[in-house]
């Protein structure tokens, strides 16, 4: 019994240690050199831009930006089990925004989920959300969106040698795997209303399900599928992306001042080439070619 208590205590300590690492105080040498390099190039706001009484000033005083995000999204926002650092495109963008406001890339990532994002922003638990947050008019009634900062699309992956699936229409009447709480669910319903959708919480689970024939196809973000197909030769991606998902930066609804501020920052990031570098360090490691042209800020209904 006492031994068990010791084990429990130890694992709790371990958890606490992990939790402590989430706020990354940018210890020199602790982060990946690429990340450091990226953040050293990231812009810092003029003192005049931090208006008194604004959300930005509140964050600066706190000395830490609280970001709602994932810890398990490969290439976007994933906690490195070795270093404890959260790495990826969304994570880097969050750190860069923190540097812009505070002067240092100090972020605390609150693990949010699609069912809690609106509430977390609404009650002020998090300052911003970087979490493949697709801008939609419905969501824009609950939260404000800066950006879009990235446009992605959904693709279809199948086991190699699967016949009869060349595009989204072919999914009709078939069992299709999707990530729970991803835009894939409504997207599949739209293009293939007769498809039976089975959902799993995480990408590795969905991949396992595909390999165990729990469904014939797996619909997910193209970059994620590209990364999966690269790691696992038994899987292949068919056709081109069939949707356009503009990702926005979630902010508290009605905070126009902060939204303008974040949009200005995004513009500076793109002009300085930091956005492109962040893409190359993360998504660019699995997608061939140069960084894409960033989407026009404010170009989507709801942003």
């Amino acid at each position, binding site marked *: 019994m006492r031994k068990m208590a010791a084990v429990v205590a130890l694992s709790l300590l371990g958890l606490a240690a992990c939790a402590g690492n989430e706020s990354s105080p940018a210890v020199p040498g602790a982060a990946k050199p690429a990340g450091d390099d990226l953040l050293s190039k990231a812009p810092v706001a003029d003192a005049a831009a931090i208006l008194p009484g604004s959300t930005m000033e509140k964050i600066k005083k706190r000395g830490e930006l609280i970001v709602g995000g994932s810890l398990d999204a490969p290439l976007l926002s994933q906690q490195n089990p070795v270093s404890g650092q959260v790495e990826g495109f969304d994570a880097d963008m969050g750190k860069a925004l923190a540097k812009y406001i505070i002067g240092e890339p100090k972020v605390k990532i609150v693990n949010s989920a*699609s*069912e*809690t994002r*609106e*509430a977390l922003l609404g009650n002020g638990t998090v300052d911003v959300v970087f979490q493949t947050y697709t801008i*939609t008019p*419905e*969501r824009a*009634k*609950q939260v404000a969106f800066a950006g879009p900062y990235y446009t992605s699309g959904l693709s279809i992956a199948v086991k190699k040698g699967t016949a009869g699936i060349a595009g989204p229409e072919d999914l009709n009447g078939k069992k299709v*795997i999707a990530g*729970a*709480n*991803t*835009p894939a*669910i*409504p997207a599949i319903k739209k293009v293939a209303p007769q498809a039976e*959708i*089975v*959902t*799993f*919480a995480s990408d590795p*689970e969905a991949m*396992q*399900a595909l390999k*165990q024939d*729990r469904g014939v196809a797996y619909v997910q973000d193209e970059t994620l599928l590209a990364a999966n197909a690269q790691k696992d030769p038994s899987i292949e991606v068919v056709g081109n992306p069939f949707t356009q998902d503009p990702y926005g930066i979630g902010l508290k609804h009605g905070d126009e001042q902060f939204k303008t501020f974040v949009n200005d920052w995004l513009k500076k990031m793109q002009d300085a080439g930091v956005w492109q570098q962040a893409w190359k360090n993360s998504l660019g490691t699995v997608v061939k070619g140069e960084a894409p042209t960033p989407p026009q800020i404010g170009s989507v209904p709801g942003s």
Partner: protein
Amino acid sequence: MSVLLEHLPELWQGLLVTFQLIAASFALAAVLGVVVTAMRVSPVPVLRALGTAYVETFQNLPLLVLLVLAFFGLPEIGIKASALVTAIVVIGVYQAAYVAEALRSGVNSVGQGQGEAARALGLTFTQSLRLVILPQALRTVVQPLGNVFIALTMNTALAGAISVVDLTAVANRVNLVEAQPIAIFVGAGLAYAAVAAVVGFATTRLERRLVMVR
């Protein structure tokens, strides 16, 4: 509120799946629970040990772990069932440990003299359990069994993790489109609360009718 009405057909479908999960897994849990209790109070040491091992194993492992292990792990050794069947069996097996503990406390509340009298009359172990001990034991544990039932109801929400589209999973999907978590999850929560309230009411009535004055 209007979100709930707009998506009523989907939510209803999810609720039906939840009902299936509850009914089938509780039936399994009840049968297994009685068997495990019988093992735990039997005069055979090996059976007693097996019963104890069963209860300790399933009470001490999180249900989510069991679900994911069974769904993704068993196919690796050639046992593959649909998500719904997997969920029913796993939840049933898991809750059986709790049913068994509730029943055992009931068995312990039956006076020792009852068992001794039954054996003295020449009843076998099974007969004395079936005809003398369990009927009395069950009466005293109506309320705890109701609690196990309610816990099982809430636990069915985990089935979504292995792709069963139950009420919680449907609520998640609706929210994904509508982005109104409070209305949607309060609505789904009320449905669970209604099930729990009905069970609570029924067990109280049942207990009053079955109560034994000693």
